[in-house]
């Protein structure tokens, strides 16, 4: 018999601020300083300028150019490590938002981002667009195109800031931000109010409205209501704007948000999380031999030989349609097994966060691989860059053999550990979510079973892909026209 059960009301997930990173001597002062973020942004701005400059003027051989090495080896590897170990550090230090002040001065104030676009569908489209361009144009093999991509990010952020009043680029558009938001849900740091009672009596709500000197939260998060790292760029403007010094950046159990926070039942959020996990597989699949067999099959069986169309089909099928179909089917199965009269999207929203650890494991195994085998390659690339400018401080011959950051024999075991670790945590989160919704263990098991099978399938496919030999194709001698 099906019964209309009431889902237990979830309280806001707020970690207890026992330790506040913003009060750690020196570090806390730097972070809370009005220009604290700018210092870190300038570091990444210099890196971005280097990427653009070298991409346009340097050698068009991807392993010998800092544009491709920094963007596709270091940025990707370090961003996933930062998310795992600390938090959304790369949004914190994002240089693309630096022209914001200028853009705001030029902006026609008062226009808000269109209501129908205030969701994650644009981000999902943006993520797919970036990965489609990456696979189709072999962006990793082209310093020149990589430089243009970096510039496009600056232009995109600037334009949206100039047109709209809030920060729609970060919250609704940026594909990198969307990736970071999803995985920061498993990060060990979160913004919270030191004392919620102070917020209740606060009149100005400067953390969201801004003060006379510091802007409020660009993504419109209100500190006492923050129960998730989703949409938090860790800019710390809230901490700087708060007149009561009541904002804390506090450690938490990294995965606790995934079963404790109350997600609104939104398909866009569900698809962002599940889709990015599947995208991790599709992206890794693009680097192993079966992808070429698939392309051959598409050409022979369907007559689709255009590479742009082939990659679009594989991406849309693997990272959008398949996860969408599976999520809806699994939500329906979960609903039937549990006997709940609940909307599918509500069940999906309850269990989708459990895909974050699995996704983190897959991306860590992939991007960590590139960082592990190529982390030191920036040394000869920098050496060569200096030589190109007549600077021979470190000799006249770059040591191109410098590459591996970790011994080769460690890499596959670490990849397997990353996938299995993500898998184990996903199962744990599924279990906790199920038990939270169903106090009776048997009911909880029935409801979570379809989701667990989906996670098992993801882990098995991931392990299969990472066990295949890699094969990297790219635009040979390509890049600049």
């Amino acid at each position, binding site marked *: 018999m099906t019964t209309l059960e009431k889902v237990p009301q979830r309280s806001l997930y707020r970690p207890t601020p026992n330790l506040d990173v913003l009060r750690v001597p020196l570090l806390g002062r730097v972070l809370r300083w009005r220009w604290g973020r700018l210092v870190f942004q300038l570091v990444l701005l210099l890196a971005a300028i280097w990427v653009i400059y070298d991409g346009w003027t340097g050698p068009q051989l991807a*392993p010998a150019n800092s544009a491709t090495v920094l963007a596709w080896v270091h940025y990707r590897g370090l961003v996933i490590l930062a998310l795992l170990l600390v938090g959304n550090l790369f949004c914190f230090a994002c240089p693309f938002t630096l022209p914001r002040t200028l853009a705001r001065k030029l902006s026609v104030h008062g226009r808000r981002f269109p209501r129908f676009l205030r969701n994650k569908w644009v981000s999902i489209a943006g993520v797919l667009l970036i990965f489609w361009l990456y696979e189709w144009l072999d962006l990793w093999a082209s310093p020149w195109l990589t430089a243009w991509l970096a510039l496009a990010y600056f232009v995109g952020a600037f334009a949206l800031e100039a047109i709209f009043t809030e920060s729609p680029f970060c919250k609704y558009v940026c594909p990198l931000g969307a990736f970071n938001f999803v995985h920061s849900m498993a990060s060990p740091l979160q913004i919270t109010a030191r004392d919620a009672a102070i917020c209740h009596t606060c009149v100005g709500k400067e953390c969201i409205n801004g003060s006379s000197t510091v802007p409020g939260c660009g993504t419109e998060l209100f500190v006492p209501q923050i129960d998730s790292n989703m949409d938090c760029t860790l800019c710390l403007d809230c901490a700087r704007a708060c007149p009561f010094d009541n904002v804390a950046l506090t450690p938490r159990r990294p995965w606790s948000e995934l079963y404790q926070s109350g997600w609104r039942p939104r398909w866009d959020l569900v698809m962002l999380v599940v889709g990015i996990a599947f995208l991790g597989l599709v992206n890794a699949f693009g680097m192993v*031999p079966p992808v070429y067999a698939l392309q051959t099959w598409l050409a022979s069986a369907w007559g689709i030989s255009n590479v742009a169309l082939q990659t679009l089909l594989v991406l849309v099928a693997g990272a959008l349609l398949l996860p969408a179909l599976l999520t809806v089917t699994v939500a329906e199965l979960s609903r039937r097994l549990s006997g709940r009269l609940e909307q599918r999207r509500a069940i999906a929203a309850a269990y989708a966060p459990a895909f974050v650890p699995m996704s983190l494991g897959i991306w860590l195994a992939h991007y960590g691989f590139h960082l592990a*085998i190529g982390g030191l*390659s920036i040394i000869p690339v920098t050496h060569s860059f200096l030589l190109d400018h007549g600077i021979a401080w470190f000799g006249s011959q770059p040591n191109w053999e410098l590459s591996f950051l970790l011994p080769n024999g460690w890499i596959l075991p670490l990849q397997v550990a990353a996938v299995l670790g993500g898998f184990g945590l996903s199962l744990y989160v599924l279990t906790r979510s199920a038990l939270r919704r169903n106090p009776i263990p048997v009911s909880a098991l029935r409801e979570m079973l379809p989701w667990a099978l989906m996670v098992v399938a993801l882990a098995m496919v991931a392990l299969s892909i990472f066990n295949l030999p*890699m094969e990297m194709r790219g635009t040979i001698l390509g890049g600049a026209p």
Partner: protein
Amino acid sequence: MGMQRIGHSMRASALRVTLLALLILASGIACTRQNSLRDEAPEIQAELLVLPLTPQVGPAQISVRLSDTSGALVRDAVLELKGDMTHPGMTPALAEALERPDGLYVASMEWSMAGDWILTLQGKLSDGRTLVRQYAITVLGPEAGSRDR
């Protein structure tokens, strides 16, 4: 208010001047850039023979034949080969091509991974000029056999 406006205007001017100076500086730096891989002997013909003829993951032998415009062999050059994958961050394959008595330069290399490689031939000719050439090579996986590419 007036003083504030003047201060603001001065800061804005200073920002514009700084940006302009940085732009000029960057342009200047860009103009002075010289690619260290610059071919100074475009008339020299470099023919490459890669064995096995269908490159596969594993050891490979690469022979280079240098000839001038008259077709005569170019001897006494010091040649190096560097194989890069198209993806950044991959360890390159490096080898020195040694001159044999018959005038061919021969090197042994190891293709570590299947995929697209860029083989860069770089060397010094006996007259001191630098020779640089690049070749695109697709390496098959060990299990690929005679897979049609």
